[in-house]
């Protein structure tokens, strides 16, 4: 499989399978947002952007641009029928109050206890949490969309995060280019595996034990 574009698309497609019809969601920039392109027919989700809008629609065409209407990635968007706008206190009230069915975010590291690190890479990157800490604390379902390993091939799914945490035990599902992992009380369970990899390769590139039933009957991720 060709690197970059295809991996991003593959992950986004598989994230899309986790979004149910009518879900109210907040999606991070990049792969999470890309997922909406792959929703099956008949499935629509209602998107919140944490900067203050529900019913966040597609990118505005040139003649539709309203300079006061952007999503959290600063794209000029349109507000869908049935949408509404509000301030940051209400926006994060919605997020923290458990009114989102799901959030999808990227990550630097996730561990088997559901801990997440995505806001601070000491010495390299300090983006700040923005709304990520609120989202992973408040959304009913926290889905992480990321490549399975770093650029250098090191595992990002670990026994224990080594980077500063974004949240403590709130991750539910991890979607990578190799697998979909579900958090269970016993640890991370392989819910699906990529058709282009092997169980051996997956286990080798994962920093913690993974749970699975019959190795020959693990469902395949969609291609």
């Amino acid at each position, binding site marked *: 499989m060709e690197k970059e574009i295809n991996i991003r698309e593959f992950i986004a497609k598989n994230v899309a399978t986790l979004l149910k019809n*009518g879900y109210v969601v907040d999606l991070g920039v990049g792969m999470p947002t890309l997922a909406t392109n792959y929703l099956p027919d008949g499935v629509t989700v209602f998107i919140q952007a944490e900067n203050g809008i*529900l019913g966040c629609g597609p990118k505005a065409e040139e003649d539709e641009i309203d300079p006061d209407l952007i999503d959290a990635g600063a794209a000029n968007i349109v507000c869908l029928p*049935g949408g*509404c706008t509000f301030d940051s206190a*209400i926006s994060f009230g*919605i997020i923290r109050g458990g009114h989102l069915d799901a959030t999808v975010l990227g990550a630097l590291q996730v561990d088997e206890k559901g801990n997440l690190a995505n806001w601070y890479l000491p010495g390299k990157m300090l983006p700040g949490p923005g709304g990520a800490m609120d989202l992973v*604390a408040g959304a009913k379902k926290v889905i992480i969309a990321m490549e399975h390993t770093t650029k250098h091939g090191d595992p990002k799914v670990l026994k224990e995060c080594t980077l500063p945490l974004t949240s403590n035990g709130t991750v539910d599902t991890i979607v990578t280019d190799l697998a979909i992992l579900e958090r269970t009380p016993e640890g991370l369970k392989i819910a699906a595996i990529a058709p282009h990899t092997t169980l051996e390769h997956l286990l080798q590139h994962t920093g913690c034990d993974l749970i699975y039933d019959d190795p020959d009957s693990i469902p395949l991720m969609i291609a």
Partner: protein
Amino acid sequence: MGKAAPDKVKTKAEALDQFKDGSSVMVGGFNKVGVPGTLLRWLSESPAKELTLICNNCSNAEGGIWYPAASMIKAGRIPTVRISYLATNTDLRPMWEAGELELEIIPQGTLAERIRAGAFGIGGFLTKVGIHTQISEGKPIIEVDGEEYFLEKPLKADIALVKATKADKMGNAICHGTSKNFNTIMAPAARFTILEADEIVEVGQLNFDHIDIPSIFVDMVVQSEKGT
């Protein structure tokens, strides 16, 4: 399809199905404005009992908009009331003194803030309102930067009954004038929220800047009946 369903307009029978014994029920409104009078009447017509009522005030004036709720209290169907202002309901004091009613009296702003905290995932907040009075008894005093406050806890409910002037079928709602009051904060504070509106319009007809209650806080929309 949950909170994002495009058409939540339902019938009286479907609303009645939501009224269950033992529920806590938030009811919007201040005095006669913003009160879901149709829903209150339907609630009183249902068999639901052992209810907890959470509201700002609840007049027992006969024929008044709160009367269905007041008569349920009188009939013993609402054994617990959490409320700010009692003066307009002359039944409450004697029933409370006779041990027939559990009454939690809450300063109005604290009531609003506790409901907002319940709605918005706040685990509690520090206030000075009523400190060193009966209201703060038994609640932890916490000092912040040399100032004394005490801790108030969030309030949530099983059902919220709220009222809007105008709503779309999805549940986005506009509360005109002083009818916003408790409606905007109770809608997100309950497990299931029923909104009654004087006027119901198609989705897309309301200006997205003017929504007082976002649709995702509303599970069901019903048409207000005349005279309530």
